[in-house]
């Protein structure tokens, strides 16, 4: 017996998992960030900058931002798929979304490593 599912929607499973994995990373970072800021109580440029100059926080912040961009790509794409019906326009919105997010990722590198 051939038991093949032809129309299974599991092509979305990878994105579903990535959206959840990035959500967990962002949630953990949010707690760490709030605790660090609460403990340091940055009241000056030097103290604020010091938080992100720390190697661990720099890496964690970058991981957070990359997760955010990937998570936003999946989430915003889902929103376009729900509300934008004409194929051409939908494709355009998706490409624009992906383009700005890739741009933001470059910007994030610049912010964190040129500070």
């Amino acid at each position: 017996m051939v038991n093949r599912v032809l129309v299974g929607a599991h092509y979305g499973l990878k994105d579903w998992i990535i959206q959840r994995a990035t959500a967990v990373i962002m949630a953990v970072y949010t707690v760490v960030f709030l605790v660090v800021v609460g403990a340091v109580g940055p009241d000056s440029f030097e103290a604020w900058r010091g938080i992100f100059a720390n190697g661990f926080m720099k890496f964690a912040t970058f991981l957070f931002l990359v997760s955010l961009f990937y998570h936003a790509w999946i989430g915003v794409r889902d929103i376009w798929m729900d509300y934008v019906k004409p194929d051409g326009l939908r494709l355009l919105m998706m490409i624009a979304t992906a383009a700005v997010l890739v741009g933001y990722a470059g910007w994030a590198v610049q912010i964190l490593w040129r500070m």
Partner: protein
Amino acid sequence: MAEMAIKKRRPKNLDLPTIRLPLPGILSILHRISGAAIFLLLPFLLWLLQASLTSGETFASAKAVVAHPLAKIILLGLIWFYMHHFCAGIRYLLLDLHKGVELEAARLSSKIVFVVSIALTLIIGAKVLW
């Protein structure tokens, strides 16, 4: 033809003012709205992060922007959106693990999401904006 006959017999309720969205439904639509709003405000947030980290002068200008009443309102709304998306997101992750899927538990957890996210928003807003 057969399709049309079936379609016609479907019950319809478009009397919008009489439709009540239960709390988990409000939570859900706010989760989508908050995710979209944070996405749209990303350039502003990245600019703020960059200005706050570049130099003493740009830090001061970022501070001045944040001190503007309009910016305060936007940021307070954004903090609430983030906290709502964060808390509701954790609730969804637990639901995905089949934790709290029963009706009563799901209602209770959506209340908790609203209470906790609004409380966090007020605390953080009071600390960083006022």
